[in-house]
């Protein structure tokens, strides 16, 4: 190794604390990117894997457009000349007594063998030495097979009882399930009984030899999907969510790279003087470059590797969060965190080194250009920093202008929107230098009030060392803005949701649970007839295809809903229900925006008896699905789809009914007698909010990560400033500064930077929230979130900023107190 490089590297252990901080900076940045990206990839890959495994060898599936399919159709499938194999399936979710939801498949192992040989083999060929066990799956009313991992997790062995909300099930064996999606299997006869589906199946998976021929015979009244179509539809369902994850990954990348850039830049700036010394001793320019690069790459390498490991640990937490969100919002998914692979390490190292190079490139270029004599003084660049700051600000303004253009371009891809938001953040961060210059007098006054002379000196230091402080403030500001922006956006969304719930969820009691416990039609009839009851709304929500894309159809009792709820309409009021009562539909804002459908238009849906034309009577605000929701009266729904399923039943009682409590108790008693789950209005609202909060858990964790990253950023900046100005402390000492005063000065420097960062983040963060609401959400979810001002995110961010900046100053202060007595002004 060249002597120049060696001399550079000696610096790393000599200033161990700074090196460690820099290392942590890189590691955190890399961890954020690796953690977020890997979790998103793992969750989505696990979804593809689960879909793939469960589809088996099926080329197609056939089902009713909505609701279960009559099993009598299966005999025709068996004889259809295009059907080589078919397998009826009951595909549901089962809640275990520990609260976990697992996928439940009811299959006929004989027929399923051609579609999913692995599963059928598990049943038919299992335990050949024990004939008694072999057919118990078929003959035991409560017999189930549990996938091996789930069995291990629940400590279940053959003969054990699996407690579920639908009763006790007897485990008769286990099977290998490579999908990682917890799975319970039951014979279809028993599954029908368990889910009260006698005479029905959910769908039939098919292996077709002639798709066209099959379609001509079955298209009318049935939904036929190829494996590819199913996959596309599943993917389409996840589209907006996937975008959201990608955005968060990009955000992580942005913050991460910014921090690494920051760290690398500090590393370079710190060495400006050393480079001057070396240059003056005869080191050549390229030797200096190699030495710098080696140092940066070592930081990038170790930090990246460390970040890869931390990021991997993060995925274990984030993947589960993402899985829960997908399960809550779309369909059942339980992604397993991906196994450790050395590729994670390579990716981390690559990212660490790449971003470090990116961060180090500009300052490095500046250093090698600098005259060695000037470089020797170490502070030359800073004297020009005011001018530099203005130049940077001009660039920032240019980037902001680009961002405005990107954000205002109509009908562009959502990625353009993301690009606009990121360029806004980058542009804003470029303005920090100028802002620091501009707020200097105010800061001087503020810090002067707080710490007298040390305060004024602290303000001066921030201004004098713009090259470092501006970058640190920019990084911190971006992190805080993210905290404010995401917080304000989530808060507004939550408030909009609360408003929506207030408008739509007016029932006293909600009986049944979507996807878990349907309400028997007889129970609905029984409740409806109860004297004194205001109304009962039998709610059914089902996914159908509209123009080949997944949307939802909900069936309600339009008269009851009209009377008892106050939907938020884009136009008009509850009179919009009138056309619904006459066989029309009302549509959600997301449906209207997604398909550009207006009131008065006609939509065509594939029903059980062929296409059905439905007139749109109104558009309502809705946050239940970004795919679009059509609401129709139950009579229309039954006519179009013939699906009698009721997912939940809402009971409405007039507020001034004197028998109100008595009626509620009576309905509760009847529901309990049937073993139906129920929720009061407040419980239902709370559970919706819980789902909402779970959904944003990932976003919140990214927000927390941004703060951590920022903390290292500002701590690194302060420590660098301190290291750089050790000799300045000597001068302060000779000027009569006490240890306490120097500590105060360091503390106020941290605080000053924190204050400026925070003030900037109030503006930038608020704009970010507005952009997220009006550009990103509107474009990706097609719904309007109303901006609600809430002090919460601002206060929390202020506390975070304060704690982080003081915390970041703590180490330098400790260092000051410890080393102050030895501080000399030898060099002066």
């Amino acid at each position, binding site marked *: 190794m060249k002597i120049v490089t060696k001399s550079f590297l000696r610096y790393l252990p000599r200033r161990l604390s700074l090196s460690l901080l820099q290392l942590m900076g890189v590691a955190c940045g890399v961890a954020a990117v690796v953690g977020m990206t890997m979790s998103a990839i793992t969750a989505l890959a696990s979804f593809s894997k689960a879909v793939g495994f469960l589809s088996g060898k099926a080329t197609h599936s056939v089902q009713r457009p909505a609701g279960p399919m009559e099993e009598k159709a299966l005999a025709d499938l068996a004889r259809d000349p295009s*059907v*080589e194999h078919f397998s009826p399936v009951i595909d549901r979710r089962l809640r275990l007594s520990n609260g976990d939801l697992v996928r439940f498949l009811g299959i006929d192992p004989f027929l399923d*063998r051609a579609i999913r040989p692995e599963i059928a083999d598990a049943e038919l060929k299992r335990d050949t030495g024990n004939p*008694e066990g*072999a*057919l*118990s799956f078929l*003959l035991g009313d409560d017999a189930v097979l549990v996938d091996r991992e789930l069995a291990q997790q629940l400590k279940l062995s053959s003969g054990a009882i699996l407690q579920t909300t639908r009763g006790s099930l007897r485990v008769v064996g286990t099977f290998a399930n490579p999908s990682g999606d917890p799975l319970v299997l039951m*014979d279809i*006869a028993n599954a029908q009984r368990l889910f009260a589906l006698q005479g029905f199946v959910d769908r039939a998976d098919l292996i077709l030899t002639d798709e066209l021929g099959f379609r001509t015979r079955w298209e009318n009244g049935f939904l036929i999907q190829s494996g590819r179509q199913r996959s596309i539809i599943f993917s389409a369902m996840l589209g907006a969510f996937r975008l959201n994850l990608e955005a968060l990954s990009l955000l992580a990348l942005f913050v991460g790279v910014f921090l690494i850039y920051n760290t690398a830049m500090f590393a370079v700036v710190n060495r400006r003087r050393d480079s001057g010394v070396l240059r003056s001793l005869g080191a050549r320019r390229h030797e200096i470059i190699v030495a710098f690069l080696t140092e940066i790459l070592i930081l990038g390498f170790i930090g990246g590797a460390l970040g890869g490991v931390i990021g991997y640990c993060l995925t274990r937490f984030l993947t589960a969060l993402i899985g829960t969100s997908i399960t809550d919002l779309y369909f059942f998914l339980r992604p397993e965190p991906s196994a450790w692979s050395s590729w994670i390490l390579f990716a981390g190292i690559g990212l660490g080194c790449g971003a470090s190079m990116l961060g180090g490139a500009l300052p490095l270029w500046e250093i090698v250009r600098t005259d060695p004599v000037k470089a020797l003084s170490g502070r030359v660049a800073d004297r020009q920093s005011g001018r530099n700051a203005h130049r940077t600000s001009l660039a920032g303004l240019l980037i902001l202008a680009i961002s405005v253009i990107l954000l205002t371009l109509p009908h562009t891809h959502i990625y353009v929107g993301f690009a606009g938001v990121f360029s806004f953040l980058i542009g804003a961060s470029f303005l920090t230098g100028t802002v620091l210059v501009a707020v200097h007098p105010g800061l001087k006054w503020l810090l002067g009030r707080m710490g007298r002379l040390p305060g004024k000196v602290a303000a001066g230091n921030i201004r004098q060392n713009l090259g470092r402080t501006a970058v640190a403030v920019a990084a911190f500001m971006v992190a805080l803005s993210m905290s404010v922006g995401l917080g304000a956006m989530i808060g507004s969304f939550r408030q909009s949701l609360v408003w929506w719930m207030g408008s739509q969820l007016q029932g006293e009691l909600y009986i049944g649970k979507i996807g878990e416990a349907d309400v028997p039609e007889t129970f609905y009839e029984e409740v409806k007839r109860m004297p004194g009851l205001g109304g009962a709304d039998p709610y059914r929500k089902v996914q159908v295809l509209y123009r080949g894309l997944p949307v939802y159809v909900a069936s309600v009792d339009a008269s009851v809903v009209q009377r008892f709820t106050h939907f938020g309409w884009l136009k008009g009021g509850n009179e919009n229900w009138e056309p619904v009562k006459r066989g029309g539909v009302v549509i959600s804002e997301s449906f209207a925006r997604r398909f550009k459908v207006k009131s008065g238009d006609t939509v065509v849906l594939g029903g059980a008896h062929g296409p059905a034309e439905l007139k749109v009577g109104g558009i309502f605000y809705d946050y239940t699905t970004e795919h679009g929701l059509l609401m129709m009266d139950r009579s229309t729904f039954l006519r179009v789809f013939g699906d009698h399923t009721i997912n939940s039943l809402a009971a409405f009682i007039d507020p001034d009914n004197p028998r109100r409590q008595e009626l509620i108790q009576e309905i509760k008693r009847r529901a309990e007698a049937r073993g139906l789950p129920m929720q009061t209005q407040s419980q239902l609202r709370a559970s919706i909010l819980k789902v909402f909060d779970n959904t944003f858990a990932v976003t919140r964790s990214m927000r927390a990560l941004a703060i951590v990253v920022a903390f290292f950023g500002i701590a690194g900046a302060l420590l660098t400033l301190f290291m750089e100005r050790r000799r300045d402390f000597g001068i302060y000492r000779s000027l009569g500064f006490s240890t306490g005063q120097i500590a105060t000065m360091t503390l106020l420097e941290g605080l000053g930077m924190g204050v400026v960062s925070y003030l900037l983040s109030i503006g930038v963060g608020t704009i970010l929230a507005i952009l997220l609401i009006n550009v990103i959400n509107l474009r990706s979810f097609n719904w309007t979130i109303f901006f609600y001002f809430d002090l919460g995110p601002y206060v929390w961010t202020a506390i975070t900023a304060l704690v982080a900046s003081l915390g970041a100053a703590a180490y330098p202060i400790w260092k000051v107190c410890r080393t102050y007595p030895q501080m000399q002004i030898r060099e002066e």
Partner: protein
Amino acid sequence: MTSGEWRVARKRTALWLAVIVGVILLSCIPSSGAEWKQAVEPWTWSFPRDHGSHPDFRTEWWYFTGNLEDTAGKRYGYQLTFFRQGVNLQPKDPQNPWSIRDLYLAHFTLTDVTPGQFSFAEHLSRKGPGFAQAAQDGMDVHLLNWSAKMEGNTVRIEARDHEMELSLKLTPTKPVVLHGEHGLSKKGAKQGQSSYYYSFTDLQTDGTIKMPGSQFPIRVRGTSWFDHEFGSNQLAQDQTGWDWFSVHLSDGQDLMIYFLRRSDESVEPTSSGTLVTATGGATHLRLADISIEVLDRWKSQRSGGTYPSKWRIFIRPANIKIVLTPLVSNQELVTGGSTGVTYWEGAVAGTGTSGGKRVTCEGYVEMTGYAGSIGGIF
């Protein structure tokens, strides 16, 4: 019995199914008090009702095999077999079509002699909502898209799987032949170790078949053999396999013989046969009336089993001496998708003498228990 002489026994595939499925299921089904009917007394036959299902018995099968020829003289063979295997005589919820009272199994093979191509497919299902059914008032049995239905004096059999298809019309040219004692066919010494068994030994056949790989159906004609057998408890523990022969002689006679092999390599003494004259008259053949010598063997690369592949058969009372060889060596079925048992069932042909006159012959042979044990299938 000489050293090279084999006394092989015949029993249809369903018999070992009876063993493997039946024994397994018997052990795991709670006794409901009711028992499957046993084949003990001679049966009072009544057709066409007895072509239908006899659900009081545990095991039943409808077995079609045939030798066919297309217009160009190319030879083919086919097998289409439906099994009904009783599982639970009194299921808890008999109205529910999914509840398992019986399992239905079926095997379908096609042999194209010219290229030596043999293809097979199998089905297995419960009754389900219209998946499988065997009517009780006449022959009308189907399993998914395979079926056999008798209307008037004609049986129509249909099967389609992937690229192979069969659609044949079979017309009996001889009356029903009752095997054993008026249709009670003994399979062992113990009581109940019997089945009721009759055949249409000579069915004039025409229709179409489609071999895998061929684009169009091939028009074929030929002769088929139909067996219908039902019982509950036929095989003994020490019976390891069987060999069954159905042969059409060119002088118009039909011959059926079966040998049940025991684990000590002896042949079950109740093994027997039936000789049917050109006019349809049937003569029961006792074991002593039959001798068979294995002249060659064929080893399956797939299963490792070694099967007899050339036989010299001598029927003493009728002075029939014939030598039979398979038309295609590999007609082995490895039935992982239904029964999990490997056996050989295929078209054969031969020459010889009958009553001193030269005859040619063709037919089908089935051999089980040569490729590993038939026990412990599931």
